[in-house]
């Protein structure tokens, strides 16, 4: 969608700093977004327009062999096959992405901790290929990795424990959980995860992405309805699709939109037949990784209870990173984990490991153990990875007898508030919740995506920039991930450089008129329906 509503010039913007709803929230919910200034929106569209025109021009020149074509090409023997790619399919990649692709996939060669080392690479052919110079850009401040609690470490208790397990078990498992791959280590981890989450039972999987895409199909099917936030992660979308259930999408974090869908679904039943839905499953995330917003969980739970729907909560970014003791978004709002039917999360972020988990009631987990695609067909988790999770989780829980974990959780919360507050003061447009360690800074214009990424690396700071299709077309942004491992000095250096680059690229768009996310206009008459 082109988000044309961003263009609407709202002369009487109301400023709401706190949007609370009927006393459901036990704490202030400070989440706001600032509308795209109209001039910026117009210029951004123009920017894409010009890029597209030039794209066509250059495609034309390539066609006539005036410009050199760097694309890999089809084999001679297969030139008469149906082309593997349609021409327009790669238009965007060829003409827009290629210009700025040096801002992505930057190889690193150290721990992805508070600082990391980046391999220097240069391109002599406008980013079609890269050459490694052999030099290493050292001690770059890492504002890009999801290392929320700083557990990406090569020494210390977690790494030591993982090393010991590597010596004993080796790297792989060579079998599935259902055949010969359920190790004692897996059982230990699952007990600990259940305890950590405050649920009856838990199960773990080797990949966070697959945890969603290979378990949702076990929970919903034909005749079921899945209500999914429009900004949900690709893995949730894929899982929903593979399930065969009908999918409807509600506006991001918009409870009116969700309630309308719930109500309509129950009143109207399934399309055509009007048969009642078998069950309704709501898919939401704890922290949205591109938006920095936190799910309005108290309201979602109230709705799911009112309408007897089931709730699937993906805590990939919020587990460890939110809540007074790092238990995630449920603890953050002071809610009961048993009110969430399916507690899902990943170990790739706060725990500095890999994989995902699902927690919930005993019956749910018994069913998943026997029906999860992952349990039956995928190789189980590598033992050293399991050990990294066990030790980091125990550390967060204080089971190691120290307060290291607890301190890190606190440090992250402090760093987050400090970093976000300073950026806002500088005049950047920052999306999301004040407590979210995911901090999107709006860039808008396509030319600024590459410029920001490069300028920051020149100043020894590694940042992530994202544009279409990961974001709406005009809402390109930089994204910082705050970590407990960042010291105040590091954050100050980063802030100083961001401010300088912000001035250089004229990124300080804010007019300090934030509007709560809830007030983003939404079109309530149409929604998507997928039925296959």
């Amino acid at each position, binding site marked *: 969608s082109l988000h044309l509503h961003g263009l609407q010039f709202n002369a009487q913007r109301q400023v709401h700093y706190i949007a609370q709803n009927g006393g459901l929230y036990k704490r202030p919910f400070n989440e706001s977004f600032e509308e795209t200034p109209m001039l910026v929106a117009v210029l951004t569209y123009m920017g894409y327009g010009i890029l597209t025109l030039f794209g066509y021009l250059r495609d034309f020149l390539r066609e006539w062999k005036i410009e050199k074509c760097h694309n890999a090409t089809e084999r001679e023997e297969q030139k008469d096959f149906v082309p593997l790619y349609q021409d327009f399919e790669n238009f965007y990649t060829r003409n827009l992405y290629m210009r700025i692709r040096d801002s992505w996939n930057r190889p690193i060669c150290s721990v992805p901790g508070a600082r990391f080392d980046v391999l220097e690479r240069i391109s002599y052919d406008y980013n079609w290929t890269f050459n490694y110079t052999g030099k290493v850009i050292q001690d770059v401040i890492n504002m890009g990795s999801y290392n929320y609690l700083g557990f990406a470490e090569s020494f210390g208790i977690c790494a030591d424990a993982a090393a010991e397990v590597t010596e004993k078990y080796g*790297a*792989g498992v060579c079998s599935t959980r259902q055949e010969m791959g359920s*190790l004692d280590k897996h059982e230990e981890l699952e007990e600990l995860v259940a305890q950590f989450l405050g649920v009856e039972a838990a199960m773990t999987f080797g990949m966070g992405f697959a945890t969603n895409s290979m378990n949702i199909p076990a929970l919903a099917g034909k005749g079921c309805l899945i209500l999914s936030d429009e900004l949900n992660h690709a893995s949730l979308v894929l899982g929903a699709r593979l399930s065969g259930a009908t999918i409807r999408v509600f506006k991001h974090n918009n409870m009116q939109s969700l309630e309308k869908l719930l109500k309509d679904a129950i*009143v109207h039943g399934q399309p055509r037949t009007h048969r009642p839905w078998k069950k309704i499953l709501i898919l939401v995330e704890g922290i949205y990784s591109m938006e920095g917003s936190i799910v309005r969980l108290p309201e979602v739970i109230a709705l799911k209870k009112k309408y007897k729907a*089931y709730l699937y909560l993906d805590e990939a970014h919020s587990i460890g990173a939110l809540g007074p003791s790092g238990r995630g978004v449920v603890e953050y709002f002071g809610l009961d984990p048993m009110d969430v039917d399916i507690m899902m999360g990943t170990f*790739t972020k706060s725990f500095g490991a890999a994989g995902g988990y699902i927690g919930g009631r005993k019956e749910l987990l018994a069913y998943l153990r026997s029906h999860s695609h992952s349990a039956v067909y995928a190789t189980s988790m590598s033992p050293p990875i399991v050990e990294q999770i066990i030790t980091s989780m125990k550390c967060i829980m204080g089971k190691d007898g120290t307060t290291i974990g607890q301190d890190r959780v606190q440090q992250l919360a402090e760093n987050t508030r400090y970093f976000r507050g300073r950026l806002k003061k500088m005049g950047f447009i920052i999306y999301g919740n004040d407590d979210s360690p995911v901090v999107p800074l709006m860039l808008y214009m396509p030319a600024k995506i590459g410029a920001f990424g490069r300028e920051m690396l020149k100043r020894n700071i590694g940042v992530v920039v994202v544009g279409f299709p990961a974001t709406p077309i005009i809402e390109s942004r930089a994204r910082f991930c705050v970590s407990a491992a960042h010291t105040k000095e590091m954050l100050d250096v980063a802030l100083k450089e961001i401010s300088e680059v912000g001035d250089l690229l004229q990124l300080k768009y804010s007019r300090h008129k934030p509007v709560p996310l809830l007030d983003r206009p939404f079109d309530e008459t149409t929604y998507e329906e997928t*039925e296959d």
Partner: protein
Amino acid sequence: LRTFSDLNTMLETQFLFLAPAYHLILEGILILWIVRLLFSKTYKLQERSDLTEKEKEELIEEWQPEPLVPPVSKEHPALNYNIVSGPPNHKIVVNGKECINFASFNFLGLLANERVKNAALTSLRKYGVGTCGPRGFYGTFDVHLELEDRLAKFMRTEEAIIYSYGFATIASAIPAYSKRGDLVFVDESACFAIQKGLQASRSNLKYFKHNDMADLERLLKEQEAEDQKNPRKARVTRRFIIVEGLYMNTGNICPLPELLKLKYKYKVRIFLEESLSFGVLGEHGQGVTEHFGINIDDIDLISANMENSLASVGGFCCGRSFVIDHQRLSGQGYCFSASLPPMLASAAIEALNIMEENPDIFSVLREKCQRIHNMLQGISGMKVVGESFSPAFHLQLEKSTGSRESDVKLLQAIIDYCTDRQIALTQARYLDKDEKFLPPPSIRVVVSVEQTEEELDKAAALIKEAAQHNLH
């Protein structure tokens, strides 16, 4: 009168003049409408204005959903899975009993290899455990690039791409190329990961009988006739044949030379899943292409996991850059998931080193496969399914007892008999309701180079004994 006829001619000429515009507009609207119908599927639900608010509330009040999950009986075999204490090596402790492992896909015994472990350890001390990001966002480590390079060299292809999860490899690769409206010819025995990739692709599927080239050609011919009726559609419909090197579900090898003939005759691309054959078949373990002496460039895409022969975690695809590079922006499991932990990449690199230094290992494995395969022939009531050189093959009941449930129980009794006598085996597990063509229940025997001749003989003898004990 004059004015009237004037008006008439004027209208007529104007109408004629306007006609193309009308046409264009009408056709435009029609096309938009069709596109909308075809793709968006966005529509308003019928408003039920006949219902009052109160009636709606009653409907909401009355609606009772099904439980989130149906109850599972405690007896369900999946809830009574094996627990392995300690490493799942050649010697394995299953449910407290020490056994020889005939169940893990550790064909080359690299799981316990000290060199592999040391490589993983060194890597751990350099990079830590997790990568804390997908490949695009600082999740690309130098070891990932090295592993991709090494895999490409090992397979003698232009490029390789690694995934952090074996299952996600082919399941992500298929939908990166094959889209809605495209055509996929797939073997009925294709493994679950292929099935899920196909489902995600939303392509049109044509299943051919397992390894039956005549049946495949019949489908291709049918399609050819179809194409002649609608050449315009045919020109944009991509087509693929998806097969496995050695089939996970049957242990059979695919007839690759015949498949290639069909590929060029009918202009269909071939994707090959080699999780079982990579690091097993061929003189250097390159897989089924080497086994048949086929130019690897004739295969459009090869995928395999690194969880069997390489005894690590993850998977890879390899082929020409023209094909493979596309996944770096379109492979869902590649783009939207954290990258492979560097220590596991390092383990895989070391495993590749060992494979390259000891090409004999593949012939040793082959001999062991043949040995136990031969000895398991002729058990009354059971049949061996799979090639004699396949390190994973199946033992099925010759005659079903009548229900799948009791077949499974019977096979489990045979396995338990063996486990009690120090041979660890497992049944091949499937999701009965989710498999497109559910394979019959079976015991999957896995051979590894670590098994000695005595152990192979013992296992075969024991299985025979267990079958006799339980089947008669």
